[in-house]
Structures are given as C-alpha cells and as structure tokens.
C-alpha cells in the first residue's frame, strides 16, 4: 500500500499522527535553547602569564618568545599572536577551523610544561584557556552604594555573588572593579636602616611566623593527644607584635619598624556607572542552558536580593543578552507569520478556493513546527540563523502542497472522485516534488565539508531549511491529500472556486492570467525568432550584475545594531589613574545629556590595568578608558546606534589630550564580534626595529588618513611610556659580590611590594603585602638609598652600584607569527570595505618600505576574503551537485545543462536589488546566492521537462516550447510568487536583529524575480539552440553510415 493510499484511506491515523507531531513540537519548542547566534566554536586558545611590574621588552624576551616557540609547534596552528605589556604576557593561538580544541589545549599545556624551566623565576603559572563564545557574559549587574568601593566589592562577593551563582542556568558571577582588602605592612625606611634590617628578613619572618603546623601525636595509657603549633595571626596586633630581630638583647617588633593596617589595596581600576562609583557583576551562563530563561531567573533572583541590600545600596541590570535575543526572535517570528499570510494570499488568488488555500497554507505552520522536533533532536538552538532559515523557507514550504493540490484538482476535472483524485494526484507528483526539494537542499551539502566561520554560522540555517523542506514534502504527500479529500468536496475544475465576496477579484485575475498566458506565448515566439538578441540581453544583464557588486560595496558581516556603543578614550601616555578618573567624569557629563530618556540604559566607564584574568583580556590601562553605552532596544528608540555614535563623536570633541576610537576592536579578534562593530580593517606592519617601524607606521597613517570612508585610525603600538631604567654597574656590583638579580629583587620588593603570607580573618583570606611606605619610595634618590647586604657582611646603598636613566618605551609589544607587528586598525564607514581596502593597498604601494619590513591587511577584510573564498567553493560544489541531481532526474546530461543556464539569470536581480536598497554584499548575501542556485533551477526544470514530454508526444519543437511555457506559467508563477512575496517582511521590515537575515531575504527576492522572468524567455531559446544542434549532429552522423 502506497503512503498516499494510507493517508487518504486512513484519515484518523493521519490526524492522530499530526496531533502527535504538534504535541511533540510544542514540547520541543520549550526545551530548545534560545540564543542569539549558533554555538560557534572559535578555534582560539589564549595563554597568559602574569609577571608583575616587569616592562614589555623584558616580558617579550623572557616570557613571550619561549612560550610562542613552544605553542607554535602544536598541530593545526594557523597563526600565533601575542602581546607583551607591563606585567603580562598574553599569547593567542588561532587554530584551523574544525580543530578539536580540547585536544589542542591539552597539547598547549604539555608544550608549556616543557619550556617551563626556561621561564624566569617569579612569574605566575601560565594559564591556558580555550576561547568559548559561551564564556561571554550574558548579563551585567551594576552594584552601587554610598560606601567605599572595596566595601561594595566585598559586599557583592560575600552576599550577592553566591545567590546569583545558585540561580538556575548561571555558571559564574564575577565581580569587576573595586579593590580587595589586604593586610598592609608599610615599612619605615629610616627605622629599617637604623636597625640594619632588610625587607627580605621581614618577608621571611612574616612567612615563618604565620603558620599552624601539626606536630604528631602522643599516646598515654588511655588517651591520644594531637600536637599542633599555632602561629597564625588571629589579629593585626598578633602581626604587629612579632619579633623581627633582636638588637642588643632587645627584641624589635614589627610595630617598631612598620605601620600595619587592614585596608583596600592599591587602586588598579575604576568603574563608573552613570557617573557613580560602583562595581559590576558579570554573569556567565552554563553551557547548553537557555540564555533567555537564565536571564529571567536572574531577574527573579534580583527581586529577592533587593530588599536585603543595605540602605543606600542599589543593584540593577546594565545589559542582558536575553532581551536582545527575545526581541530578535520575536522580530523573525513576525516576519515568518507575515510571510505565511502573504503566501496563502497568493495561493488564494491563483487557486481561487478559500478552503483549499487555507488547507494548502496548513503546510507552513506544520512544516515549521515539525522542524522544532528535528531541531531538538539535532541539538540546535533557536537562534537568528536557525529561525532565519525557517523564515526564509516559509514561501518554499508551501510549494510542494501547491503542486500536489493543483494536480488533485486536475484529476477532479477528469472526473475522479475526491479520494481517488487525492491519491492519483499526489502519487503522480511525488517524484517531481521530491526532485525539486532535493535540488533546493543539495546546495547545502557542501557546508558539511567546510569548517570555516561561514559553515559554523550558516549550518544551523541550512539545517532548519532542510528540516522544514523535508517536513513540507512529508506534509504534501500525507496530510494535504487527506484534507483536500475530506474538506474540499465541491471543487470540480481548477481555478474556479466560488466566493461571493472575492468573486469580482477572481474574475479579474482570471482575465489577467489568460491575457498573460497569451502574451507569454507571443513573447516566446518572438524570443525564438530573436535568439541572438535574447542571449545578448541576458549576457549584458549578467555583466551589469557583476559590475553592480563593487558599486554596492562589500563587507564581511552586516553591521548589527546590538544596542551597545563602545568608545575607547586614550589620554596622554603615562597619565595616572586619578587624572584619568577626573577626565572620565568630564566625559560622562558630556555624554549623559545626549540621550533621550527612551534611549539609554546605562553609561559604564572602566579604566585601569586591573588584575588577573581581567587584565589578560582587557586592553585597558591607567590612561586608557572604555566607555560602554548600553542603549535600549532598537524598537524603543528612533535613533540608530550609528546615528547616536556620530552625535557622540561631535559631543566629545575638545577635551584636551583625549583621543577616541568609536569602533573599538580588540587585537586580532575581528570575526569574534560577528558584525557588531561593522567593517574593520587591520593593517599589519611587520618589522623588528622599533624606531623604523614607528616611522613607517606614521607614514602609512599619514597617507591613508584622507581616504574617504576611513575612520577611527588606531595604532596598536604606543610609544612614550615613561620608564626609569635601572642599569647595574656590573663591575662595581661584582666587586661587592652582588648581582643584578639581587638588585632588581630589592627594588621590586620595596617599591612594588611582596605578598609575604596570607591573613585569615573572619573566614576569608587576605594578602599580607609588605613594602616601603609611600613616602619612602617616591623619588629616584630614595630608591638609590635602599641598602643591600654584601656577602662580606657589609651594608651598602645600591646607589653606589646602579645608574637610573630616563627612557620611554612601548606600552605593549605585539607579535604575530614570531615577528614584531604593529596593527593599524581602522573602520570603513559610508563606503564599502572592499573599496576602502583597495585604496589602502594602492596607498601602501607608494610608501617606501624599510628593509626587512612587510605589510599585510587583516581584520574583517581578511576574514571576509577567507569566508568569501569558502562560500564560493560551496557555491561551485552546490551547483555541481544540483546538476548531478537533475542528471539523475532527467536521465540525461544535456537537459540539466540547459537548466543550469537559469542560474546566472538571477545575478542581475541580486545585484540590482542590493544596489537599489543600498545594501552591501556580505557573507549573508552570498549565502542567499547559494540558496538561489537550488531554487531558481526549479522553474527551468518544469519548462524543460514539459517541453520534452510534448516533443516525445509528437509536437514540433517550437510549438512544444510555446505550449509548455503557457501551460506551465501558472504553477511556475504560483510557486515563485509565494517564495518572493513571502520574503517582503524579512527583506524590508528591519528591527532588532534583522541585519543578518535581511540581506539573505533581499538576495533571494531579487534573484528569484529576475531569475523567474529571464528563465521564461531564456530557457526556451537555449533549449531550441541545443536541440537544433543536437538534431543536426545526429543527422550528420546518421548520414555517414
């Protein structure tokens, strides 16, 4: 029994099956994770090492280089970049796409262990982390209060962090900004000198005294006693009262030579929220958890936390991804619903039967919701790409149902009763709709062989289109024949439904279709008489299409309005954090009034080197601040992100000494932003010598700064960090038995301080930081007066063996692939990325290059080129596979060759549409073109197939072409119009998160429109040429025999 027989004869079974599918779909929908983008695994790992208070050059030589060499030999490494800055070496290893990152990170750790002995003493352990997009915080909370920041931070860590981390879905909550409390031991130099004490002695004593040590057991006849020596400090007084030395039988206590206190450590960063002091809590979600639900849970938790806060404290969200996702998903769902309504309206206009049109329309929601079950089974999240796929496919999933219904009605015309017509009509079309579904889907197969960013991003979209199309095929051969048989009893002829309300419209449209068919018949005849003209016209339009690509412009990803503006403000190098804080207040005063009430969520300012992981992943310094403006969603505001950014550019001008970068991108991470900062270019200048590279970079900057559309030029290397370089006179030092290491250590411990031990207080542990008090370490002379013990028992001032030179050095040294590099980052705005990059290339050729220097262009331009190449390969493979499917379908090599001529006809429409709508070509557009290859051939297949049939039935070539065209015009129009018109909401509605799907919608709309019109004329011409030549060839060969 055939599947159609079952579906028509067993309506109860089919109904139950679909009710089951609907229930499963609803359940799946609630279990599917909601996210903004698919779970892209970036093949990036980062190794960072802290080496406090050591300058960039020293870090480069002693830490970065050995680590780079070690990690560079790991398998599948694409390139290695590094940055050596004060106190920190950070190495980023970019692997080839598709690399198993768990294995790669294990390899990196192994290699680092092998070189660990070559690294200097005193460095922290190297930390290796895999870059994971789910590591990015999903939500930020601002915690403000009328107390000092260290208290706010402590309060947040002790009272809020745990509660947030207990929330369902939350992996961790990290408190950023604010100083940690510490036990400070501030040594008084004059007293240290008087007692002939060194800082090392104090450090050692503190470490040795602050210990609890188990001493074993003693046993008596009946009892066992445990010995324990208790030395840990229980209070600051315990610490103050330790004896650090004995002089003349008099004990010298720590309190005699130092001030001991428990207070906030050195301020390493600042965080302002809407101008107020505060701290920020960044929340990460657990892998695989639903972002929207997690954010919702955190909001609920906040409601219970708020009443418990001390007076004057406030906690409020500053950003959350959940809102963005919800708005974007809602926007796409609206597009999907509107597209569905348009498709059904088109079907109604052509089928002219309200009931049948609605039943055909059923295939849309059912195909879409069935996809949810498959998405759940394939572990796909509901994101912009997967839902975009469903929205794009909405006009296509109805096509199979249309074809089947049209054929059922054809059987009704022949006299078949309802059940019989449904069975026969569906059976007959089964093969054809399977083949056309396969051509639509086969273009996505090459994505399986590509591991690049495009494949990672678009696989979800390809899969959901596949799911919905396969579901639509199943619906067309099971549900549609059953419901047509049951619910459309009256139809006996096609295109003749009755409706009192719509009858005038139906009559007019019938006249229109008949006129159109007649006109089209004449048009084919004309085209067959003017083949050269037709071919020239199509050729010219194809060329125009290609020419329009650079005119429209090219970008990597469409710029997203992610409701966030990030501005980097740089003050003169060497500016301390206090001055930066003052300037930031000025900036806040200018920034806050710009926003209308409905636009702004929060302005957050951060500056300072920070500590630990934060320092490793931040480009902030004491003189470099990040102003992060969180806007309300696009739906609520009239001005776009780029409009507001332009206003800010003007408003922030004129603060002396401050330069801005309004499209900040961190080094070498352009693709990670996935379009949030638009089209970026990174000019990479390779060369060793600092001075030469500075001059070369300056001359490049001067020559490109006037290129139209180029904005926000930012040079990664900053010269001028004031340094006091201590040079040890080795001869004098060695005579004293002292080496450079001892001198360096002495200065480091006295000036930067040393954590001697940990102080346990009220259940928490704090650093015991020992160093000279501030008043004793402010001048070079004071440093020179530090005393050091020689092996001969003498005590000398280090001033006698060192010189201190004033120098300036780079604040950070970037390297890429083991060479020093300077990045000149900039942005293309108002002009296409490709044309700006071309201008830059031209400018670069005119600048004389120093010896051993070379330049390359990276940033999103490089990503764009790589991804475009990947997608072009996918396009070519997709076209070949489409040909293969058609060759099997036609059992011919010539017929698919004719059909493939329909592919280039869509190029003109794509380019024209992009040009007229002011859209640039991006990766998303290219995806649209790939999809078009599979879709646009369908119309040509119908034409060629029916022409073949007519010829084999004995029709003449020309007559067959005209007849096939006119007879197949309506089904072709119906399927094309549903696809094209259903994309109107997606292509034009805009709204939150529409930036990625909009170009795909526009490309498919434009390409299908011209592809449809040109195919109707061009394919008959090509058919005639090929067939005539084939006949001539056959006749010639027959004549020979």
């Amino acid at each position, binding site marked *: 029994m055939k599947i159609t027989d079952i579906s028509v004869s067993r309506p109860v079974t089919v109904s139950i099956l679909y009710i089951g599918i609907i229930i499963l779909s609803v359940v799946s929908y609630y279990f599917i994770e909601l996210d903004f983008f698919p779970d892209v695994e970036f093949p990036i790992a980062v190794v960072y090492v802290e080496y406090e208070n050591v300058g960039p050059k020293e870090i480069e030589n002693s830490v970065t280089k050995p680590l780079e060499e070690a990690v560079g030999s790991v398998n599948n490494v694409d390139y290695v970049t590094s940055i050596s800055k004060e106190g920190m070496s950070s190495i980023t290893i970019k692997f080839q796409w598709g690399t198993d990152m768990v294995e790669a990170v294990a390899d990196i750790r192994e290699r680092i262990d092998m070189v660990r002995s070559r690294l200097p003493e005193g460095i922290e352990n190297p930390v290796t982390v895999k870059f994971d997009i789910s590591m990015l915080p999903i939500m930020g909370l601002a915690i403000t209060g009328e107390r000092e920041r260290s208290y706010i931070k402590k309060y947040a860590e002790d009272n809020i962090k745990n509660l947030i981390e207990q929330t369902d879905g939350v992996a961790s909550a990290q408190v950023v900004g604010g100083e940690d409390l510490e036990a400070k031991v501030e040594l008084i130099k004059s007293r240290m000198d008087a007692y002939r004490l060194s800082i090392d002695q104090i450090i050692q004593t503190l470490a040795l005294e602050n210990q609890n040590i188990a001493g074993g057991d003693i046993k008596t006849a009946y009892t066992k006693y445990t010995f324990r020596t208790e030395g840990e400090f229980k209070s600051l007084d315990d610490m103050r009262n330790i004896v650090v030395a004995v002089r003349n039988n008099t004990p010298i206590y720590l309190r005699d030579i130092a001030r001991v206190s428990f207070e906030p450590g050195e301020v390493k960063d600042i965080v302002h929220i809407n101008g107020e002091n505060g701290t920020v809590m960044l929340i990460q979600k657990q892998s695989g958890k639903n972002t929207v639900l997690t954010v919702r849970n955190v909001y609920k938790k906040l409601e219970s936390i708020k009443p418990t806060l001390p007076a004057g404290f406030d906690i409020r969200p500053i950003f959350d991804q959940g809102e963005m996702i919800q708005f974007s998903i809602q926007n796409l769902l609206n597009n999907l619903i509107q597209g569905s309504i348009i498709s059904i309206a088109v079907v109604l206009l052509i089928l002219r039967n309200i009931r049948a049109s609605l039943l055909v329309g059923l295939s849309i929601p059912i195909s879409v919701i069935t996809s949810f079950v498959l998405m759940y089974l394939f572990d796909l999240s509901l994101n912009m790409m997967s839902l975009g796929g469903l929205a794009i496919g909405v006009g296509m999933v109805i096509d199979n149902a249309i074809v089947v219904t049209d054929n059922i009605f054809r*059987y009704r*015309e*022949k*006299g*078949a*009763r309802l*059940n*019989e*017509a449904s069975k*026969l009509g569906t059976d*007959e079309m089964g093969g054809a709709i399977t083949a056309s579904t396969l051509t639509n889907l086969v273009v996505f197969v090459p994505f399986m062989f590509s591991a690049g960013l495009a494949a990672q991003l678009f696989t979800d979209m390809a899969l959901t289109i596949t799911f919905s199309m396969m579901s639509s095929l199943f619906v067309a051969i099971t549900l549609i024949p059953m419901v047509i048989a049951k619910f459309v009893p009256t139809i006996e002829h096609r295109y003749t439904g009755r409706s009192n309300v719509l009858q005038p419209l139906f009559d007019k449209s019938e006249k229109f279709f008949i006129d159109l068919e007649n006109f089209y018949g004449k048009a084919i005849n004309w085209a067959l008489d003017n083949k050269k003209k037709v071919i020239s016209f199509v050729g010219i339009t194809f060329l125009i299409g290609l020419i329009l690509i650079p005119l429209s412009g090219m970008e990597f990803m469409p710029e997203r309005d992610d409701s966030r503006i990030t501005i980097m403000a740089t003050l003169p190098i060497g500016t301390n954090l206090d001055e930066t804080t003052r300037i930031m207040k000025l900036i806040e005063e200018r920034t806050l009034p710009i926003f209308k009430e409905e636009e702004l969520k929060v302005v957050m300012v951060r500056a300072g080197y920070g500590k630990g992981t934060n320092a490793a992943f931040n480009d902030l310094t004491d003189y470099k601040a990040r102003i992060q403006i969180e806007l309300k969603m696009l739906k609520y505001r009239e001005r776009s992100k780029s409009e507001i950014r332009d206003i800010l550019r003007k408003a922030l001008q004129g603060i002396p000494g401050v330069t801005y970068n309004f499209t900040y991108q961190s080094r070498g991470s352009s693709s990670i932003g996935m379009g949030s900062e638009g089209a970026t270019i990174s000019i990479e200048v390779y060369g060793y010598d600092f001075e030469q590279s500075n001059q070369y970079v300056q001359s490049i900057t001067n020559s490109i700064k006037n290129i139209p559309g180029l904005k926000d030029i930012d040079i990664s290397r900053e010269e001028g960090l004031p340094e006091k370089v201590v040079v040890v006179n080795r001869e004098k030092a060695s005579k004293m038995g002292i080496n450079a290491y001892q001198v360096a250590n002495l200065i480091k411990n006295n000036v930067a301080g040393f954590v001697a031990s940990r102080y346990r207080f009220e259940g928490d542990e704090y650093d015991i930081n020992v160093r000279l008090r501030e008043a004793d370490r402010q001048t070079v002379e004071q440093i020179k007066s530090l005393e050091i013990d020689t092996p001969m028992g003498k005590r000398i001032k280090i001033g006698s063996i060192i010189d201190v030179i004033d120098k300036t050095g780079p604040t950070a040294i970037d390297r890429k692939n083991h060479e020093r590099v300077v990045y000149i980052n900039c942005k293309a705005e108002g002009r296409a990325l490709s044309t700006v990059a071309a201008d830059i290339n031209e400018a670069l050729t005119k600048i004389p290059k120093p010896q051993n220097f070379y330049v390359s262009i990276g940033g999103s331009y490089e990503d764009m080129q790589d991804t475009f190449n990947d997608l072009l390969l996918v396009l070519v493979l997709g076209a070949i596979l489409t040909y293969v499917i058609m060759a099997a379908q036609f059992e011919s090599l010539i017929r698919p060759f004719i059909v493939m001529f329909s592919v280039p006809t869509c190029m003109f429409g794509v380019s024209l549409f992009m040009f007229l709508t002011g859209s640039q070509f991006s990766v998303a557009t290219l995806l649209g073109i790939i999809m078009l290859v599979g879709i646009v051939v369908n119309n040509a297949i119908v034409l060629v197939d029916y022409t073949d*049939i007519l010829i*084999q*039935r004995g029709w003449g070539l020309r007559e067959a072409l005209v007849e096939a065209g006119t007879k197949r015009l309506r089904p072709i129009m119906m399927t094309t119009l549903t696809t094209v018109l259903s994309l109107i909401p997606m292509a034009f509605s805009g709204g939150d998160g529409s930036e990625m799907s909009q170009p795909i919608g526009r490309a498919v709309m434009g390409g299908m429109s011209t592809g449809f019109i040109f195919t109707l004329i061009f394919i008959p011409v090509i058919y005639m040429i090929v067939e005539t030549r084939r006949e001539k060839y056959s006749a010639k060969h027959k004549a020979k025999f």
Partner: protein
Amino acid sequence: MVMLFIVYHNAVDEEVVEITKKYAKGYTKFVGVLGEGNKEPQLGTHIWGGLNNCLMVAIEDNKMKDAIASDIASLKVKFKDAGVSIFVMPLKEML
C-alpha cells in the same frame, strides 16, 4: 450471455464500478492496465502518465448490457477527457 470488458481511465474508477454493480452480480477488476486508443495513450510512463483500469463483467441479460452501456455513455458526456470503452463478446458458459 455476454462478457463485457470495460476499459476506462482510472480517474473514473468509482463511477464505473458503481454503474457495473447496479446491473451485474459481480465483476473482476484489473488495475493499472496500459493501452492506446482514441484518447490520450494511457501508458504509465513519464510521457504518457495516465493509467487505465479494466472491469471484466459477465452479463446474462442483454437488457442489462444496454443499461450499462447507456449509463457509461452518460458518464462519457459528463467527463469528456476520461476515456471509457466497452468491449462485448459472447460468453459460452459460466462454471
């Protein structure tokens, strides 16, 4: 006694079977038979996709035969595209 072979387009299967059952005690149906005649060939191929069915009906009374022929003629008027042909031949006996 006559034997009727009614060959018809499968689209009108239900109608033809109904007519036959009105006048005859039983029938034998061959589903999906191929053939060419005055109308479109019914060859079940990609070029000529249609299929015929065939009913073999034994009739004892000639009046019945005429009644069937008359109903089929009306059916042909109603569905001009659906070809229906009746082939009549003598039947010696039925065991």
